[in-house]
C-alpha cells in the first residue's frame, strides 16, 4: 500500500528529470554562432525557412513563437535585457511599437534597398519580407466575380445586407482602415464604416474564420488577406466554394501589407542577425514564401504561384508603411463609429 501511495510521484519524478534535462540542454551556450529570433509569424509558416538558414549557415537558431503584439509587449518589458537578436513580425504595428521605444538598430542600406520603398520603414529600422494583399473573398456558389463592386465602398449598398463578414479586431483590417484614412480621408472612411455597419456585417475573430464562413455559405463575402484561402484549398481541395477577388484598383482596398523584420539593438549576435535578414531577402527564401505560404515576395524576379499576379504588375495602393503608423487615430475612429466596443 505504501508503494501504491507514492505511485503518483513516479510520473512526477520522471517529469522533473525530463524537465531538468531539457533545461540544461537549452541553456548550453553554443560555440558556433547563435541567433535568437522572436517570431510573431507562426511556426507553420516560417520554421522551414529558418531551418534552411540554419543548415546553410551553421548558425544555431532559437526561436520563440508567439503572437506579434504579445511578443512586442514582451520586448518592451524586457528592454535592454532582451535575449532576442531579431524580431520577425506578422505586421508593421508590432515593429513600430518596438522601434518607437528605441529598441531596434538601423539596418544597412544594402538590405533596405532590396525592397521597394513602400515596404521598409523610412528611418531604416525594419524591412518588409513578404506581402499579402487585401482582397474580397466570395462564395462561388452564390456569386460571380462580376457581381462584385469595383471597390469596397460598393459594399455599403443595401443589397449586401447581412451578407458581409469582417474582423475589426484584426490588425490587417485596422491597417486597411488606416490606409483608407490616408487615401480617402476621414470623412469617406467614416461613411464607409457606418455604411457597412448599416448592412449588419457578421463580426469574426479573424481572417481564418471569415474564409471558413464564406466557404460554408454562412456569409457571401468577406474582407480578408489573400492567402488564407489557399490553405483551405490545399486541405479541402479545389471544390472548396470560395475564391479571392482582387480589387486591383490602386485604392486602400487593394493594400499590400507586409510582414517585417527588425534587429534588436541589444542583440549579441549582430552578424548572424544581418545574415539572417539577408537570407530572408534572398531569392531562395523569397521563393519559399511565394511557393509555400502563398505570399507575395517583395524582391523582384521570383516565380509566383499560379494565378497570382506579381506585385510589380499589380495596381496596389501606393502608400508607405510609415503612413500606416497612425493606429491610434484608426482605433479612435473605429470606437467612435461603434465598430469596436
Amino acid at each position, binding site marked *: 500500500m505504501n508503494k501504491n501511495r507514492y505511485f503518483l510521484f513516479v510520473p512526477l519524478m*520522471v517529469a522533473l528529470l525530463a524537465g531538468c534535462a531539457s533545461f540544461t540542454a537549452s541553456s548550453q551556450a553554443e560555440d558556433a554562432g547563435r541567433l535568437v529570433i522572436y517570431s510573431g509569424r507562426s511556426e507553420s509558416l516560417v520554421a522551414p525557412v529558418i531551418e534552411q538558414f540554419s543548415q546553410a549557415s551553421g548558425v544555431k537558431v532559437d526561436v*520563440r513563437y508567439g503572437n506579434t503584439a*504579445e511578443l512586442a509587449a514582451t520586448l518592451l*518589458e524586457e528592454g535592454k535585457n532582451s535575449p532576442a537578436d531579431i524580431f520577425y513580425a506578422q505586421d508593421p504595428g508590432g515593429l513600430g511599437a518596438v522601434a518607437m521605444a528605441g529598441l531596434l538598430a538601423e539596418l544597412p542600406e544594402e538590405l533596405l534597398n532590396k525592397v521597394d520603398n513602400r515596404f521598409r520603414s523610412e528611418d531604416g529600422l525594419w524591412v518588409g519580407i513578404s506581402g499579402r494583399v487585401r482582397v474580397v473573398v466570395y462564395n462561388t456558389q452564390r456569386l460571380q466575380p462580376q457581381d462584385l463592386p469595383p471597390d469596397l465602398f460598393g459594399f455599403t449598398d443595401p443589397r449586401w445586407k447581412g451578407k458581409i463578414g469582417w474582423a475589426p479586431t484584426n490588425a490587417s483590417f485596422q491597417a486597411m482602415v488606416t490606409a483608407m484614412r490616408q487615401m480617402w480621408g476621414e470623412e469617406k472612411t467614416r461613411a464607409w464604416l457606418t455604411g457597412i455597419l448599416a448592412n449588419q456585417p457578421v463580426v469574426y475573430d479573424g481572417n481564418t474564420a471569415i474564409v471558413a464562413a464564406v466557404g*460554408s455559405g454562412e456569409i457571401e463575402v468577406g474582407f480578408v488577406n489573400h492567402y488564407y484561402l489557399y490553405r483551405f484549398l490545399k*486541405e479541402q481541395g479545389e471544390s472548396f466554394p470560395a475564391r479571392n477577388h482582387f480589387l486591383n484598383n490602386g485604392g486602400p482596398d487593394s493594400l499590400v501589407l507586409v510582414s517585417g523584420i527588425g534587429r534588436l539593438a541589444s542583440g549579441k549576435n549582430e552578424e548572424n542577425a544581418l545574415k539572417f535578414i539577408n537570407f530572408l531577402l534572398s531569392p531562395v527564401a523569397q521563393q519559399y514564401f511565394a511557393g509555400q505560404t502563398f505570399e507575395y515576395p517583395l524582391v523582384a524576379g521570383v516565380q509566383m504561384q499560379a494565378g497570382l499576379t506579381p506585385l510589380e504588375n499589380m495596381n496596389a495602393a501606393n502608400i508607405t508603411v510609415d503612413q500606416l503608423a497612425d493606429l491610434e487615430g484608426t*482605433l479612435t475612429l473605429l470606437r467612435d463609429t461603434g465598430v469596436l*466596443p
Partner: protein
Amino acid sequence: MLRDWVNTMRFGTISSPPARGAWLYLPAALVALAMTLPLIYLIVRASTAGISAWNWLLRIQTIQIIGQSIGLALAVMLAALLLGIPLAWLVTRSDLVGRKIWSVLLPLPLVIPSYVAAYLFVSFFAPRGLLQQMLEGWLGIERLPSVYGFWGAWLVLTLMTYPYVFMAARAVLSRSDRSLEEAARSLGYSPLETFWKVTLPQLRPALAASSLLVGLYVLRDFGAVSILRFSTFTRAIYLQYQSSIDRSTAALLALVLILITIGFLIAEQRFRRSAAEYPHTAARPPELTRLGRWQVLGLALVGITLLLGLFFPAGVLFYWLVRGLAAGGQVNHWLRPFWGSVSAAGLAAGATVLLTFPVSILSVRRKSIFSQVLEKWSYIGYAVPGIVVALALVFFGANFVPGLYQTLFMLLFAYVILFLPQAMGSIQASLRMVQPSLEEAAASLGENPLRVFQRITLPLIMPGVGAAAALVFLTAMKELPATLLLAPIGFSTLATQIWGAVSEAYFARAAAPALILILTSSISMYLINLHSMNEGSSQRQ
C-alpha cells in the same frame, strides 16, 4: 472530549500550542509575495496610463462590457453547478451503467483549450457548419440558428468548466456519511428531498470553491469569447494589447478585473461561511441508488455532456486530421511537444501542490485573519488573464533575475501563480478531514513537524493531493500565453503547436497535437482515478 474535538475542527487553534506550525507563515508569506508580483506590475504600468485610458474606462460601454462579463460568469457558474452536481451524483451514488468509465471521461473537457473548443464548436454548429451540411443532405435544412454571442459563449464555457464542479462534488459525494441521508429518509423525505435538504448542504463548501474557479475562469477567458464574438472585459484587455500594444491601458483594465474578482471572492466567502464545517465519517460506503427506468435519463445526461464536451470535439479533430492527410498535408513531429507538455505540466502539478501546502495548512489548522487573507490573496494570479501574469514575469525576470529568465523555472513559477488556487480547494478539503489529534499524537511520539506531515498528514490527504495535482496538470497542459512567452526558448508544447496551426488555418496540423493532448490527459486521468479508488477502498478496510 467530543466537543473539544469538534471545536478543534472548527477553530483549528484551540488544541494546538501556539508555537506549532507558526514557521509555516514564512513559506506561506513567500508564496503570497510571489502572487503579488502581477499586481505590482499592473500598478507600475497603470500609473503611466494617460487621460485617454481613464476616459476609455469610464465610458458607458465599458460599464456595459463589465456587466456582460459578470453576467456571463454568473450564468456559466449556475449552469456548471446544474450540470456538474447531477453528473457527480450519477457516477458516485447511483448504479448508472458504466459509471466508472464516465467518471474518467467526464473531467476531460477541461483539457481542451477554450479557443480550440470554441473553434470546433463554431465549425460544427455554425449556421452553415458541419452539422448543417449533414442535415442538408437528409432534411434539406439550409441554415441553423446563430450560435454566436452570449448563448454560444455560455454553452462552450459551461462545457469546458463544469468539470471543476463535477470533480469537487464527486470527491465529497464519494466519501460523505450516508447515515445522514438515511436519517432523512427515515424521517419521511423522498430521495430527491433528501438530496436537496441534506446532501446539498454538505456539498456547499466544495460547490462554493469550485464555482468560484468556474467564475474566475470565465472572467479571464479570452479564446472562447473572441471566437464566439461576445464582448467581455478580458477580451477588451487583449484587444488593447493586440491592436495598439498599449500596456498601460491594458494594465488599468486588468486592475479593474482584479476588483471584480475580489467581489467574487467575498461572495464566495459569504456563501461558504454559512455552511458548517464538520468532519466527514465514511463508516460505510455510500449505498448506490437504483435508477431503474431513470437509467435512460441518467445515461442521456452523461451522453449528451460527453458528446458535446468531448466526443464531438475529438470527432471534428479526427475529421480534420483525416481530411488534411488525405489531401497530402503533413503532420508535425509530435514527440518533442508531447514531451514538453507532459514534463512542464507534470512539474507544474508537483510544484504547485508543494507550494500549496503551507497556505492550505495554515488556513485550515490555524485560522486567523492573516491566514484567511493569505488564502484569498493567492487567487489574485488566477484572477488576471494569462498574458498579464506572463508579462509581469517577463518584466521582473528580464530586469531583476536575468539568470533565471526564460528558464523552465520561470515557466513553472508562472504556472504556480496561475494555478495555485485550483490546487488549494481540494487539498484544504482533505486536510479538514484529518483530525488534528492524529498529528498531535505523532508529535507526542517524538516526531518533528516535517516528519509528522510526511508520515501522518500526507498519506491521509493523498487522494486530495492527487485530485489537486490532476487539476493543475490538466490545465497546465493547455496553458498558452505564459508558455509562449516564458518557456525556455525553443521549448514547444502541444498547446503551442495547436495554437500555431489553428491561427494560420492549418487544421490538419492542429488536429494531431490536439488529439494527443486529449489522449494523454485521458490516460493520466484514468491512472489518477484508479489510484484514488484504491486509496479509498484501503482506507475503508
